């Protein structure tokens, strides 16, 4: 690992200022993605700005029809939260199946969302639950947040502070995990709000996307059979040592069907 300057930010404002004024400053949340990246010398930040001690970024609360989660809230806290478990059990399930217990004890929601890793779980929840993301500068709708492989709408100095997830009538998340890392080979988050259905797919493409053909069919009939014969196109899907694009396309349909079936049992 290359060496760097280290700062423990006391507030969001201070962290933002430091990340702008340092040469190549990098924010650090749980470090579960960033530290492995540094160890492999895939990044060489001049400064690390640790968000770990900023209390205002942690916490879970119910506000109207949403569950609001602070960016620095750990996966462990979301998985075990009574508020999340009763309002959006699918989200608690998602957080509880990220990596392993020790990763969940350090890794944060904000770090997972801000990173837009193609195989991360949280982006599927953000998009399917049509969440509103708040930063130190503005609010961003889920559909406008993820821009590409490891790319989001966040600008330099912009810090994700909290995310408001809409409480659905029914929802579930189903993933086919990589057997070693537990990252999603393919994950499908399905959510029903009144007559509207949203389906977000992670793991399959270069970043999270909505499966609109599934959404249209599920709006008419919220059953696994409704999407059984809809073929996920392979052209934009990932192909790597873990799974071919053809296999991933197949999994997209299977995971979405299983998510719908389970959502209907809740």
């Amino acid at each position, binding site marked *: *690992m*290359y*060496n*760097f*300057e*280290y700062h*423990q930010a006391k507030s969001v404002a201070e962290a933002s200022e430091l990340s702008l004024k340092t040469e190549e400053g990098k924010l650090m949340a749980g*470090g*579960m993605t960033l*530290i*492995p990246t*540094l*160890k492999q010398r895939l990044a060489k930040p001049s400064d*690390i700005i*640790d968000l*770990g001690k900023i209390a205002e970024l942690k916490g879970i609360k119910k506000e109207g029809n949403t569950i609001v989660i602070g960016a620095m809230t750990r996966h*462990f806290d979301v998985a*075990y939260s009574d508020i999340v478990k009763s309002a959006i059990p699918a989200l608690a399930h998602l957080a509880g199946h990220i*990596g*392993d*217990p*020790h*990763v969940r*004890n*350090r890794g944060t929601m904000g770090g997972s969302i801000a990173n837009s890793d193609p195989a991360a779980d949280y982006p599927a929840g953000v998009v399917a639950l049509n969440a509103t993301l708040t930063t130190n500068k503005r609010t961003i709708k889920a559909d406008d947040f993820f821009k590409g492989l490891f790319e989001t709408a966040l600008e330099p100095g912009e810090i994700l502070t909290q995310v408001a997830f809409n409480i659905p009538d029914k929802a579930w998340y189903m993933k086919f995990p990589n057997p*070693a*890392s*537990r990252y999603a080979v393919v994950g499908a988050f399905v959510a029903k709000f009144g007559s509207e259905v949203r389906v977000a797919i992670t793991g399959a493409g270069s970043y999270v996307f909505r499966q609109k053909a599934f959404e249209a069919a599920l709006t008419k009939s919220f059953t696994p059979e409704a999407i059984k014969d809809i073929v996920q196109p392979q052209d934009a899907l990932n192909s790597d040592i873990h799974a071919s694009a053809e296999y991933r396309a197949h999994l997209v349909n299977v995971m979405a069907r299983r998510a719908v079936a389970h959502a209907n049992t809740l």
Partner: protein
Amino acid sequence: MPTVTITVNGKPETREVENRTLLVQFLRESIGLTGTHVGCDTSQCGACVVHIDGYSAKSCTMLATQVNGSNVKTIEGLADGDKLHPMQEAFRENHGLQCGFCTPGMVMSAVYLLEVNKKPNEQEIRSWLEGNICRCTGYHNIVKAIAACADAMAKA
């Protein structure tokens, strides 16, 4: 160089470190507690698991500066003098180790599991161990040891 003070197994330890010093390097090289192992160095194997302020974490994926001021417990801090911790005792009784390389992390992980879930079933134990890799035992006796420890602690 920055100075950190980390309370390790109840004893405050103040040392100079580099900003890039990992917690596991601090424990093994600065303090000399070599019970915490490095198996993979890629955050996957769990041989380096310790407790930070009560919860389990991979010490190869944390900076010493991040835990400045925290309480860290390592495998060396579990036994009470010559008396093994019930989890260590259960691993011994149930032959839950062979080469022993993964064992410190396994034991620290298992101790934390019983803090979160006092009576885990077999499936819960197995899925908890997703972050702890063992190349020797095939896990069976590790799972048995953890279940036996949960029983013993329930009776105690």
